């Protein structure tokens, strides 16, 4: 009897002494955890609400213009605030053309930069070069705009566009006066802006390829380029598509830099030298000036078109990434 009491003393004596404490603790736990979970869930739902709200607000505010112009809005090149006649064609055309130029320049360049960083450069050098390229991603859009308008556009007008006009002027793409601003300049600046993002993903993809596979190819006598082209790129093809999606998503909605240099005219022109506009640049330029309700609504309709483009790209990218995870999760 005394024996058992003594042996259980450390455990047996304490609870009665501190009896109130566990109860308070227990009560707080019972209350604290559900509250914590609820707050976290509410914040998580807020993101969901934000996304749905954004889409709904765009649809609601674009509704007057949707009713007025219907889907014909998408193929009409009219933009006349005085007569209240609006169409999205020139803005959509500008968005697509500037994005295509940007992708055409940025994707191949980032593939070779990633190749340099992963396969060729000394790790220390790769760190410095990679860091510098990543820093390009942190430069705010408006700085690209300032530099583009005051530094790069004059440079294009003096040195690049005349040369292109002389040698490739027989193509409708490179005709017209070299003004500096315009589609081509906007596309090049966009390419610079998405370069770091695409490079980062490409680099990750290249690094994911198992060394053994590459070494095997090297062992067969392949050169570095052959290993890259036939092993690394094939192995990481799905990841490369993801990188392209990422760049697309960035380029489509980029606003300030494009607004500065694209020239802002509602014209569809085959020449890349001529001024144009994009959906984002039209919004940035005209939204605060739009006084008529229908004008405002037409601008929101433009925003809705951009949102649909973004959603298609985002959903495409996420579905694609999920597929990669599945296939790579299974094989590696």
């Amino acid at each position, binding site marked *: 009897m005394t024996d058992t009491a003594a042996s259980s003393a450390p455990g047996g004596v304490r609870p009665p002494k501190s009896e109130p404490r566990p109860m308070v603790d227990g009560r707080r736990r019972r209350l604290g955890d559900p509250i914590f979970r609820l707050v976290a869930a509410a914040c998580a739902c*807020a993101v969901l609400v934000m996304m749905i709200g*954004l889409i709904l607000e*765009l649809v609601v505010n674009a509704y007057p213009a949707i009713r007025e112009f219907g889907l014909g809005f998408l193929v009409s090149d009219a933009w006349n605030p005085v007569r209240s006649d609006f169409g999205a064609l020139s803005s959509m055309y500008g968005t697509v053309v500037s994005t295509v130029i940007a992708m055409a320049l940025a994707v191949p360049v980032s593939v*070779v*930069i990633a190749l340099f960083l992963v396969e060729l450069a000394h790790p220390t050098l790769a760190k410095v*070069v990679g860091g510098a390229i990543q820093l390009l991603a942190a430069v*705010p859009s408006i700085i*690209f705009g300032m530099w583009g308008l005051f530094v790069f556009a004059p440079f294009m007008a003096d040195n690049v566009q005349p040369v292109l006009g002389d040698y490739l002027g027989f193509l409708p793409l490179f005709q017209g006066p070299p003004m500096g601003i315009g589609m081509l300049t906007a596309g090049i600046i966009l390419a610079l802006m998405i370069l770091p993002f695409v490079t980062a993903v490409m680099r990750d993809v290249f690094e994911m390829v198992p060394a053994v596979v590459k070494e095997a190819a090297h062992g067969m006598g392949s050169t570095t380029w052959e290993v890259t082209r036939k092993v690394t790129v094939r192995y990481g093809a799905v990841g490369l598509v993801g990188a392209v999606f990422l760049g697309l998503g960035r380029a489509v909605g980029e606003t300030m830099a494009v607004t500065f240099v694209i020239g802002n005219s509602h014209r569809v022109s085959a020449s890349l030298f001529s001024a144009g506009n994009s959906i984002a640049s039209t919004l940035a330029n005209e*939204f605060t000036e739009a006084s008529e309700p229908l004008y405002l609504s037409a601008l929101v309709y433009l925003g809705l078109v951009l949102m649909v483009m973004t959603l298609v790209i985002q959903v495409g990218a996420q579905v694609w990434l999920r597929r990669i995870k599945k296939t790579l999760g299974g094989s590696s």
Partner: protein
Amino acid sequence: MRPRRATYRKATDVGVKALSLLASLVGIFFLGWILFEVARRGLGAIDWQFFTQNPAPPGVEGGGLSSAIVGTLLITALATLIGVPLGVMAGVYLAEFGKQNRLGSSVRFAVNTMMGVPSILVGLFIYAIFVLPFGHFSGYAGAMSLAVIMIPVVARTTEDMLGLVPDALRESALALGAPRWRVTVSVVFRSAKSGMLTGILLAVARVSGETAPLLFTALNSPYWPSSLAEPTSNLTVTIFNYAMSPYADWQQAAWGASLLIMASVLGLTVFARVALKEKKG
């Protein structure tokens, strides 16, 4: 495989290697060019008055951008106050409670999508819910739009960083009898602290250079920001307005503001990345 001459293959290899070196140099060259031009043209515009005086009309001597500097600081600070707690808690939900369930995966989808939504559309959204009903532009609306941009970024980083914390740590804290919230706040947060801080700093850096969402929300104003309930002066929209103006002295001031914004955004970014070394590019 069709055999090719070794010299041809070697030449191609050297050519591609040279190309890749060249491409990297081109990237760095453009970065250097931008930094150099902004610094060169901006330094001429920055003097004591730039920080201490309100904007002057074009042609008038003197004047600075003190009101815009203060406005940007206020808007960014308010956006951080709204965006960080919301974003962190949303990230906590994703990492701690919503790993498998339906709500978790829909929120994760929303976070990824919102991260890709162009910032100008966020401006439109806030205009529709915050400016139209009140009938005027305001600094609060500007802060809201920046917060909306921040929340998904912070949520995503938080989720990623909390995901790196080993479950064993959570389990041992739970085994000690700590309630779930306590485990998250004092154990999980603590071990993920540096990563979360980096993410938050990067998000703050990013929104402080944003222009597009402020165009239709905070608008701009030449006056001292005495209240955020009215159009609020800020640096980035000022750059846009001044750069598009035909006045040389305004354009000069725009370069000064550009240098200030670029230096602070890049400074914050580099600080955030260097302060935490584990996190990769």
